[in-house]
């Protein structure tokens, strides 16, 4: 980069800008931009930073509720959880880096989302992650799973934030493009929330954290393009994380945030110094002038272009009160972190960048933001899937159950969880696998948070609208099943190339479904991230897109965390099924794993029934009348019952359904809005359900240590557990 380069349309194209976009740059600048200026435009106008393909559709999502303090637009969403506290949370993808370099890609994904949360003044209290990998049969998958799991653990364990939940799917559509979506939840006092809008002309702009190196240059641009066979040669664009520095940065920032020194603060994430400086000044309606000579640097002879585009990790940008800079400097010196005043706010409305006495960039901020491209890309509405015809079970019920609980998407994730520290902090009330949502207590209070991530990509592929609604409904249901009140959602929208009309059609339909579910369930979206171009170019020139994967991160609250319940079967209880069963096998796990078919329409999502059933379940849990609850999802009733049995080793005897539905459809159908619950008195419980208009029926009786099918066939809890536990070790430790 030190040799002189000519800035022209062809370089702009190399930087990911179209000819039309470059034309816009020329008209804003009124001259040919410098290399640094072109770099700033190209990252700010990348898909990753500008949301140019998605923005039009994101506007339609519901984002408001009385308990929402800050919705989309800040570093993370903020909701009121009571007693003066706020939960601050967001989910973000690190998909492309995790394919190129799984360990660092996943690790820096965790680091980045942590910074989005503590930037706002919150102490991070929980991490979750939604992961999608390629087929277990693909030899590459094992390496990626290994690196991603080690990376998430390596970073999260070291910073001391418990990893309490998440989800994992396998599908060949992710072979060349795994998804790593990391979510962080933090807690702050409502009166100590920090925002990013800069204010106060003349106020110092301060850089803290790690030094700037040449890593990750143009990372935001890379994540805005599809992969080709040269993907692995892009390894130098992947950043390297240092969780130790992040831990120091968390503690130093929180210490400084207890003072009145900070005017505005933002982490340097994608597009590093460029996006943090541009966004802070832009939001505050001020100008900003940076002197790059003052930037702490890890490598000699870095150019302005390199420094502005570096994505070195563990860095923050702050605007401070001038009379507090020495106080701030002392705090960062205590934590042995770099602290440098690198500029100040101006009234010019421009970002001005100086380096070694030369003017490297001078860009008006307003047009950089306001004239950023927004596309209404052509789309083709998805066609409705053909209904699934008649299907028949080739095996006995017990054989199919054992096969299902051992299958990749349903097998125990203990091998993964056991590499994540889930207890650090001393507030983890329900660890991974113990309840439908993880439960974390808010220190010094009785408040509990219920946290989950959900999405069923195979439903989204078959019918994006239903799949989008289902992802939201399942998150809501998982929170409800613990007894918590669902509050709000963060989303991570992972899709293919938006320049293809069919992909854009998927995106639009999925958002419609999500939006409708959020509205009916009063479950607004307060933060999120869009990851497009998740496609791999094959050697033959065709491209493989991922399954549309709008991952939903849900957050709920318990006023008294001791009322939370888990999913494990309790002894000597009546087992009751809540919700209507039609036996929907389209796109079911049973159909895929037992018959090898991915066909039909996903189960219908009836949001009114979802709300009615869920509100009833939650009220009964809060009244202490349900002792265990599990939502019925992948694998249907029988898999849900088996999961309850495996969780505690306590068995149950199931009743014959007498439903007129074929057995495989009854037991493995994935109809929505259903729960299995343990209650003391099924009769009284079902009577209350009937009064509330909620379908409920006795399904069995718990006790012993075997799952007893209506046919009399028994499967011991130990045998189920053995089958359930075998998949990951067999895949990973061979």
């Amino acid at each position: 980069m030190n040799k002189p380069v000519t800035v022209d349309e062809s370089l702009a194209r190399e930087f990911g800008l179209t000819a039309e976009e470059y034309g816009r740059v020329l008209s804003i600048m009124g001259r040919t931009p410098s290399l640094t200026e072109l770099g700033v435009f190209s990252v700010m106008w990348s898909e990753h930073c500008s949301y140019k393909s998605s923005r039009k559709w994101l506007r339609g999502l519901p984002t408001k509720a009385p308990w929402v303090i800050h919705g989309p637009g800040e570093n993370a969403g903020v909701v009121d959880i009571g007693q003066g506290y706020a939960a601050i949370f967001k989910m973000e993808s690190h998909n492309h880096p995790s394919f190129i370099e799984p360990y660092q890609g996943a690790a820096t994904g965790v680091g980045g989302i942590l910074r989005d949360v503590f930037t706002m003044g919150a102490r991070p209290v929980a991490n979750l992650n939604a992961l999608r990998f390629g087929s277990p049969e693909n030899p590459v998958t094992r390496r990626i799973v290994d690196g991603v799991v080690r990376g998430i653990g390596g970073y999260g364990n070291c910073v001391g934030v418990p990893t309490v939940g998440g989800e994992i799917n396998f599908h060949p559509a992710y072979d060349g493009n795994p998804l790593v979506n990391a979510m962080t939840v933090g807690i702050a006092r409502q009166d100590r929330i920090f925002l990013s809008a800069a204010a106060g002309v003349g106020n110092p702009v301060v850089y803290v954290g790690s030094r700037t190196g040449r890593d990750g240059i143009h990372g935001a641009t890379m994540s805005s393009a599809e992969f080709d066979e040269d993907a692995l040669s892009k390894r130098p664009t992947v950043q390297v994380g240092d969780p130790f520095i992040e831990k120091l940065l968390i503690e130093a920032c929180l210490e400084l945030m207890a003072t009145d020194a900070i005017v505005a603060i933002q982490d340097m994430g994608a597009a590093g110094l460029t996006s943090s400086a541009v966004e802070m000044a832009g939001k505050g309606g001020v100008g900003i002038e940076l002197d790059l000579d003052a930037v702490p640097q890890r490598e000699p002879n870095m150019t302005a272009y390199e420094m502005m585009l570096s994505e070195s990790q563990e860095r923050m940008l702050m605007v401070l009160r001038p009379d507090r800079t020495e106080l701030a400097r002392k705090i960062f010196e205590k934590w042995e972190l770099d602290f440098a005043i690198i500029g100040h706010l101006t009234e010019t409305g421009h970002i001005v960048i100086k380096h070694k006495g030369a003017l490297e960039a001078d860009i008006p901020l307003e047009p950089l933001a306001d004239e950023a491209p927004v596309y209404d890309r052509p789309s083709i509405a998805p066609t409705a899937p053909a209904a699934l015809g008649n299907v028949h079970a080739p095996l006995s019920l017990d054989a199919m159950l054992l096969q299902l609980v051992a299958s990749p998407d349903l097998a125990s994730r203990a091998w993964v969880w056991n590499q994540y520290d889930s207890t650090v902090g001393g507030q983890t009330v329900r660890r991974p696998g113990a309840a439908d949502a993880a439960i974390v207590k808010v220190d010094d209070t009785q408040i509990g948070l219920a946290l989950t991530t959900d999405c069923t990509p195979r439903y989204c592929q078959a019918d994006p609208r239903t799949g989008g609604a289902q992802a939201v409904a399942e998150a809501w249901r998982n929170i409800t099943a613990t007894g918590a009140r669902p509050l709000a959602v963060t989303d991570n929208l992972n899709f293919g190339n938006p320049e293809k009309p069919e992909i854009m059609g998927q995106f639009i339909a999925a958002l419609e479904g999500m939006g409708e579910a959020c509205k009916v369930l009063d479950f607004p979206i307060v933060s999120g991230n869009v990851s497009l171009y998740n496609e791999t170019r094959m050697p033959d020139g065709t491209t493989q897109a991922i399954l549309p994967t709008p991952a939903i991160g849900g957050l709920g609250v318990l006023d008294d965390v001791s009322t939370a319940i888990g999913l494990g079967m309790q002894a000597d209880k009546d087992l009751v099924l809540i919700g209507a069963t039609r036996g929907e096998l389209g796109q079911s796990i049973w159909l895929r794993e037992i018959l090898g078919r991915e066909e039909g329409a996903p189960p219908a999502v009836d949001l009114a029934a979802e709300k009615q059933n869920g509100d009833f379940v939650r009220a009964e849990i809060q009244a202490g009348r349900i002792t265990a609850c599990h939502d019925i999802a992948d694998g249907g009733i029988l898999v849900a019952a088996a999961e309850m049995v495996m969780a505690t080793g306590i068995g149950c005897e199931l009743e014959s359904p007498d439903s007129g539905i074929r057995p495989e459809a009854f037991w493995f159908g994935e109809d929505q809005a259903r729960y299995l619950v343990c209650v003391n008195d099924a009769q009284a419980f079902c009577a209350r359900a009937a009064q509330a208009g909620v379908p409920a029926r006795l399904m069995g009786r718990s006790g012993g240590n075997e799952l007893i099918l209506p046919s009399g066939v028994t499967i011991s809890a130990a045998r189920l557990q053995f089958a359930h536990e075998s998949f990951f070790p067999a895949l990973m430790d061979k």
Partner: protein
Amino acid sequence: MKAAIVVFPGTNRERDMAIALRRVTGQAPRMIWHHETDLSGIDLVVLPGGFSYGDYLRCGAMAAHSPIMGAVRDFAAKGGHILGVCNGFQILTESNLLPGALLRNANLRFLSQDCYLRVEVENTPFTRRWKKGDVFRTPLAHGDGNYTADAEALAVLEGEGRVAFRYADAKGRVQADDAGSNPNGSVNSIAGVLSENKRICGMMPHPEDLVDPLMGGEDGLPLFEGLVEALVR
């Protein structure tokens, strides 16, 4: 009992430990930054878990040379009581306040799970609320917890009754070559050791994370209750 928790850069289980100590003493422990050197008036020094200095170089190696550790050595020389958990145990071995070393877990992966510990010696300040042979559950979370010591040191530890806890199964059976009950592969299934005067204890698992029924149990509480009993003034 006046307790102090030492905080190094990268320490991350100091709040867990403070909760456990507050639970048994009714007062917040003193948090001591690693640059400090004053331990006057302190009955118990705790080196908590975490990744001091990022665990770069070797776990605990850099922390062993920080200013506070000089004061901790003096405190030990005067017969002071010290508890080191996880990274704190690693720091104690790196400081030669306890024998042996902690290697990478045998399966070369970070482990975060519940384990069972069998109490090997009673009537120490750390184990007095248990009887020899008692078994209790506790979480563990570490990448480098595989305890080892040379044959001579091991013979001394075993001979002098200085193995405080061993990894076991739920029924108290100890089997060093069984990854199920001895998850990190420690020699003789050793999970915690004591100094010669039995006033310094290092252990890998986290009893401080199991002191509240809400978090799944109180199995770790007797350790802290015993310390209060022993160190009450």
